[in-house]
């Protein structure tokens, strides 16, 4: 997979996390199928890192419930995502992978997007810190596709 596709995905995801929807929407809508696959991979890697950085390995279900309540109340809106969906995607990425098995792809994507945005806003990450998060995610995606390419 090409580095330009990863860089393009990083720009799009950065726009989303900066709430720059005028930039995000047309770029995201213009992705072709291969680029969408790269974007999904980058998003997944960023979500995994952000969630694990936020909660750590000792987090409890109560920690997730409290975060989701505050996230919906303060950062993304109560109607954007249900508590159940938001808690499921966070607990899944923190290790309870089976929790999202019954969710539709749309519901899962919407909940993950809302929670990634909430984590970034709750931590008040600077532009540089978001760049650092996306750099790590991009490196993981690059390595993943390189491994895939060698098979």
């Amino acid at each position, binding site marked *: 997979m090409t580095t330009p596709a990863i860089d393009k995905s990083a720009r799009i995801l950065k726009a989303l996390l900066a709430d720059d929807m005028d930039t995000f929407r047309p770029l995201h809508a213009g992705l072709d199928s291969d680029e969408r696959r790269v974007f999904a991979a980058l998003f997944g890697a960023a979500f995994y890192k952000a969630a694990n950085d936020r909660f750590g390995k000792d987090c409890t279900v109560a920690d997730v419930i*409290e975060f989701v*309540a*505050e996230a919906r*109340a303060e950062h993304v809106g*109560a*109607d954007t995502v249900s*508590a159940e969906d938001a808690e499921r995607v966070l607990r899944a990425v923190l290790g309870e992978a089976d929790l999202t098995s019954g969710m539709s792809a749309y519901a899962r994507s919407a909940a993950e997007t809302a929670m990634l945005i909430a984590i970034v806003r709750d931590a008040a990450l600077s532009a540089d810190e978001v760049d650092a998060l996306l750099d790590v995610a991009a490196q993981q995606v690059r390595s993943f596709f390189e491994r895939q390419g060698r098979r």
Partner: protein
Amino acid sequence: MTVTPAQFAALRAALDGDEETVDRLAASPGFLGGEGFPILVAAAFVSAAQRRFPTGWSPGDVVRFVGHLRVRNGAAGEDLSATATEQMLLSALRGEVVGGEFDEATKGIAQVALLMELVRDFDEQELSTFLAEAREQADAWLAQHGHSLTGRECRA
């Protein structure tokens, strides 16, 4: 029709966490024969909700409250439907009927869990006064709607 002493005592026991007494009273003759108990619980719930969130509340306040409730109740709170619980509280505050997407058992569990959380900081005197007022409201409601009202029609 009015709230019976057993129904009133059962709500008090429920709020004290005395499940044994609730079960014993609920098994007494006539306990479930009328609308007294659900109307009493609904009156107490709506009153407690409006007391806790008098004016100027936001949906975010409700979301936070339900989140705290679920955390405070541990494993039982994790099993409580967050969406149903939020909808029950929002409906009480807005004076709306809860939508039909939840079954009666889910709504009942959410309502009692909310009521217990809403009154948890009441002292003995406050709780007694509060429940007496709820009983008066329930009796007035039953006197007006007694024979035609069903639990499903009861707000929140």
